[in-house]
């Protein structure tokens, strides 16, 4: 009786021990980024590097643009990820085409004016005045091609997903994939921007689209 008990326990220990050891020695396959308070989740490949909220906040707080400080005050969470190790936070916020893919996610409250005025077009125009450029009414608009423009409906909100390529300053073509959602009660704005030079985006398309699809908005608890 005792012998069989000892045998059983030896087997059990033999099974459990490697499992626990394996679990503790491995690394996760992805980096999981989340703002659990606002219910926003996404993943990036595990070898990507984080650009912290603090560093982005620091850059944004130095901005001289009108109303920049007010906008920063509305931000709940913003974070960036890049393949590059020491990717500067300044470059996350500039429109200059990066050579390596960059992901930027921002969650902020909407002011009451914005809540009243918000539309899908407002969401499309968050990064560049896309609707104006697309309408062709602006002569100074850069050459632009929109590869996707679709509605996103998630548990926590709804919005539009747009992917477009334009030639920016310096003549480099840049592809931007932007997902912009507003919360069901329109109180909060969720934005994910994945961008890179066109060639870079095309070559990394599979990885980047995976990141885009991982963007999940559950909404506030």
């Amino acid at each position: 009786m005792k012998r069989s008990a000892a045998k059983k326990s030896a087997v059990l220990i033999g099974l459990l021990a490697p499992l626990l050891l394996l679990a503790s020695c491995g690394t996760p396959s992805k980096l999981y980024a989340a703002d659990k308070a606002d219910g926003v989740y996404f993943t990036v490949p595990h070898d990507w590097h984080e650009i912290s909220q603090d560093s982005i906040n620091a850059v944004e707080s130095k901005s001289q643009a009108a109303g920049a400080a007010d906008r920063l005050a509305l931000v709940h969470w913003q974070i960036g990820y890049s393949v590059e190790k020491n990717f500067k936070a300044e470059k996350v916020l500039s429109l200059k085409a990066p050579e390596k893919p960059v992901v930027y996610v921002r969650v902020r409250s909407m002011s009451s004016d914005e809540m009243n005025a918000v539309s899908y077009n407002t969401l499309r125009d968050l990064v560049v005045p896309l609707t104006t450029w697309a309408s062709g009414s602006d002569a100074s608009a850069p050459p632009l091609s929109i590869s996707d423009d679709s509605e996103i409906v998630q548990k926590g909100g709804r919005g539009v997903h747009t992917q477009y390529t334009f030639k920016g300053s310096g003549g480099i073509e840049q592809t931007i994939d932007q997902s912009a959602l507003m919360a069901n009660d329109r109180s909060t704005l969720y934005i994910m921007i994945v961008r890179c030079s066109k060639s870079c985006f095309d070559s990394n398309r599979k990885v980047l689209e995976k990141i885009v699809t991982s963007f999940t908005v559950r909404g506030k608890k």
Partner: protein
Amino acid sequence: MSEFKSRERDSDRKTRIRLTFFDRVKFLLLFGLVFLILLWAALANDPLLSFHDAAVIESNQRWWLISLAGVEIVRQIHFFLAERASGYHSGWQRYFAFVDRTTHRISDWNRYRLSRATKGLLGVALLAVVLGAIYKETPVKALFLAPQALWKALPLLGQLAFAVLFIVIQFFAMFWFLSRGGIDTYFPDDIRTRFSDVWGQDHVLNRIRENLMFLESPEEIEKIGGYVPGGILLWGPPGTGKTLMAEAIAGETGKPFIFVDPGAFNNMFFGVGVLKVKSLFRKLRKLSLRYGGVVVFFDEADSLGNRGISTSTNRTEESSVFGSSCHGGNYLSNPSAQMILKERFVAGTAMGGGGGGGMGTLQALLTEMSGLKKPRGFFNRVLRRTLGMRPKNPPKYRILVVMATNLPEALDEALLRPGRIDRIYRVGYPSKAGRVRTYKGYLDKVSHVLTDEEIDKLATITPYSTGAIIKDTINEALIMSIRNGGAAITWADVIKAKQLKDLGPAEDVEYIERERHAVAVHEACHGTMAYLVRHHMAIDLATIEKGSDYLGMVASIPPDDQFTRWKSEYEADILVSLASLAGERIFFDGDNSSGVSGDLESATTIASFMEGHWGMGSTVSSHASNRRNEIGAPGGGKPKDDGVRDLRMALADRIEENLGTLLTRAESILHENRAKVLSLAHALEIHKTISGEDVVAVMQGSEGPLVDGRPYQSDANIDAIEKYHQAALEAHKGHERPRMEIPRF
């Protein structure tokens, strides 16, 4: 059939006892379960998380859980080896012995405090982790949020449950409060009494000092394999200084002293007494650990009661021996008197004990007093057991239990067994040296003019005086001295105080002359007989002043502390008792009063004991055991030398015969000393109360302190006294006044 094998002692085992399967895996299962719960929580918290990644992330974050599991696996491997390899096991045991030795270098109290603090921290930490997991906060924050959140989250049912709990808490609180009180703690130097303040009990004090010495430095006895004696019972008559001794112990010891009130275990509700005992001993153990020892004193320990065994008490009740017109019992030495009382009242006292304790209190006390060596405590017993470790034995609690009682027979037998009460000391009446010391001690506090010789004499004439009696006598003497306008206590004050204390105030009753003469003759017979035959006692005083319960008396005291009694002495006692009957018959022409009843009773009792108990009669067997074994009294006795057997007689007949013989002897003695009796009666009639020295003066014709005995040597005077006696005898017969006045010299 296989032989029964005694279970090996732990120290005799070569390998460790094998664990059961559950004991082997329970912690791994627990850790696995916790890990799965944490994993589940993480998965629920992030919709993108894959199981594998969640497992990896969780195991990285909960490294402590993995480490614990690792430690457990190592431990199980260790156990596995210890169960199979005896070499490994014995090596490990040796290593552990070293660890134990090291930890035991810390003092018991510090280890207790360390373990208490560790347990507390462990509890808080576990709570914090659990709360942290529940509230998804850091454990520390969760710890602070928890009470608030708990109240918010409590639904109505929870609140109702809390209300029930609240009532329960009230009951607990009530019982807790009820179980307080009656127990006072004194710390060293709180009490100023020292052993030097206890007088006349040096033999007991020396033994107690020894107990205290062992308590102060227990290593002395423990290192050579002994143990500190744990219990002392002090018993003895009231007022002999038992409580004072306990007070001195409290003053002398460097350990805390707990005084337990006699009423502490009286309880209104069932179980409160038990709670009290338990809380008392919890306190004792704590103090013992903290200070390395503790003394607990149960005053009037008889209040703890017993479990219904019949008790005999020494209560002195109104008796014809002691309450007679002649105060017959007072002729006896104290032990004889005690003997008579015990014999008379043993059967008549309450059966069944109970006492103040009852309701399990005594049993709880018994258990606590001998149950100190069991492993204790939840963590020690349950947690260590859960971890597969053996509970540690408790440290040595050095508790000195001191009990005091004047009714040792009311104590439960089990309470007095060694291990509970190791030493039983009788705190008896102080020795003469002790009495001298006590007299001096109390006299030093007042102004007096007594010489050392007088103090010595005082101690001699007050045998069986306890400290309390001596204190009272001195105080009474002081009052006498103040009343008489004196500045200091004189010898006369002390003697008067002593007489007042012994006899009570005289009743100021003036006898009519013929009755005065009868009482005087009665007492003179006792006095003369005592002077003539009773050499083991000295006459203290003789009086014919009527007191509350006597008409007159002759009181005797032993001149020395005496511990053995002899047949000749008892015979002398009986002769003194019978002297009254013999004398009355001689002097009143065969008439005698009822005043001899008490004398006869004591004479008969002593004669019975002599015949039936003490081997002072014609038979050998003890009536005490005969009666106990329901055999019946023997007849007959030793064959006479001529081979003729005595007529077989029943015990009562033999007693009567002995008494008859002694009465005849008393009559012949008194007959021969007729003049002495009448002289003493005359002195008593004149002076009412005279001292023992005056009695001797009358007998020897010398000069006493009050009475000049020289006139009694003159034949003319004796004739005058004889004439007066004849006149009084006539008056007695005719119930009239005597025709002549008492002659005065």
